[in-house]
């Protein structure tokens, strides 16, 4: 087994592993970590595949991976910030596990700030 293939397979398994964790775990932090693991898997695969098959050094996948890492960092930052806000609001860092029908019952009376002012007694 060539090392390229090994890395590629490792990348693929990281992706799968991350996917499993994403579905399995309820805590949002774990889900965010899972997404990151999946991302690393994709990046590893990208670099490994670029190295294999071609004779010359190919810079394009490396550029892609760097771009991808930047994107992943921003996404992670946003996700973490959202998680904190959610925990502040609900006290829990899990997804509100409601079916859409139940959710429709629980929607705030008026989610917008324009409408919220006259919302006091209408609940």
């Amino acid at each position: 087994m060539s090392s390229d293939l090994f890395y590629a397979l490792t990348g693929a398994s990281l992706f799968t592993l991350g996917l499993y964790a994403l579905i399995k775990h309820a805590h949002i932090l774990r889900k965010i970590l899972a997404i990151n693991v999946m991302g690393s898997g994709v990046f590893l695969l990208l670099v490994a595949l670029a190295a294999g098959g071609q004779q010359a050094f190919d810079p394009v996948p490396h550029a892609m991976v760097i771009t991808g890492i930047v994107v992943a960092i921003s996404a992670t930052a946003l996700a973490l910030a959202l998680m904190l806000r959610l925990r502040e609001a609900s006290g829990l860092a899990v997804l509100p596990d409601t079916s859409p029908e139940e959710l429709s019952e629980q929607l705030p009376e008026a989610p917008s700030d324009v409408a919220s002012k006259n919302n006091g007694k209408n609940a």
Partner: protein
Amino acid sequence: MLAQSFSWQVTVIILPLVAALLCFMLPKWGRWLGLVMAFAITGSVIVLAYQVMNQGALRYAVGGWGAPLGIDLYVDGLSLLMLMVVALVGLVVSVYSMAYFKAGKAVHFWPLWMLLWTAMNALFLSADIFNLYVTLELLGLAAVALVALAGGVDALGAAMRYLLVSLLGSLCYLLGVALLYHSFGTVDIALLAERVESTPAVWAAMALMTVGLLFKTALFPLHFWLPPAHASAPAPVSALLSALVVKASFYILLRLWLEVFSQDSTAAAQLLGVLGAAAVLWGGVQALRQTRLKMLIAYSTVSQIGYLFLVFPLASLMAWQAGLYLLLSHALAKAAMFLAAGNILCFGGHDRIADLDRVAQRLPLSLTAFALAGVSSMGLPFSGGFIGKWMLLDAALQSGQWWWVAVIIVGGLLAAAYIFNVIGHSFTRAEISHEAKPVPAIMEWSALVLALAAVLMGLFASWPLAVMDIGAPFGGGGS
């Protein structure tokens, strides 16, 4: 060369980006800056449209690097129409948001919205699949942040779910990109279209990218995140998400299928069609069961997205055109609906369908907007939805796949049922509502303008159809 150093394609991406930064740095001026820039962006899209209609499809190499290494911006009829519908909806929503968002949230709304606009324009102009990935991520992040803007547990939870789904979708897509690049050594769509051949790696890439994009497009059964996210966001954001953002990922899917995956994928196309049909029916039935107006509209989006996927198994020129036409008219109609729903919510403080009677008679313009947009969603004349449905029916009958006709028909009847369910509630005898709060006229008219645009698309179909042919996105490419 002047044409190389200045390009309207770049302008339509740079302008909203600059606007986003300015709005962010000068929060006090954010609203007015945003509005002025919205007009400027729309203006530059019009100039670009004029250019494309005279010169045909345009390709522009950013920085002069060219296809294999640099970033290419490509605009043909398909991307031009997407840019234009984004500009139209974007402009009207901007005007609406001027009145909708008061000081606090406006500070966050305008930079994020401009960023969203940047991402969409860049997405529709991208000529390579990796650049599409970057813009798709940018789009997703901006959209999630906009949903979270509403605050509250529901909105934050919906945003979180949306973000995770969106990231999962992007990663699947990126994995597909990696496979395609490995196989053919390029990410440029046009080059891929020339080099692509049917190999297991391509099948895997197709599966991964399609699934990733289906997550983002919210095709049944991957739609679960959409209704809560779209229903709990502020009204202008719901309008943008439902009308435009889900269409962006559909656009990528359409491009890929037309250019790269167009060979031997009959079974997969049938599968997409079946999922689309299921979405049409499931979304319709769910919309009928909703007690909240915004949830109803969100499920209506799930249903309407299904129609777009019915074109894959038909795969004729007429079908592609029908799909795009439905997409455009749905964008206008759905934005109008969410804006109208926003007005109703704003006015009465609630959006319970059963209690609309006190609200809707006092907001005739918003109700008219909702009704006209509803007509388009049902596919009744005169509306863009009718033209799209007509073409889709025609394409389905001509291909001999009559079972899609049944789906289209039942979907239309379901739409009529849930739309008229809402309208019927507005015709009860009105009592004086004490908690009512006046809605700024500009918000009512914004909704109506979009609805009228959807209606006009039913009368002036020749022009968009002619634009679609520019660069033959549905004709020559791919095979």
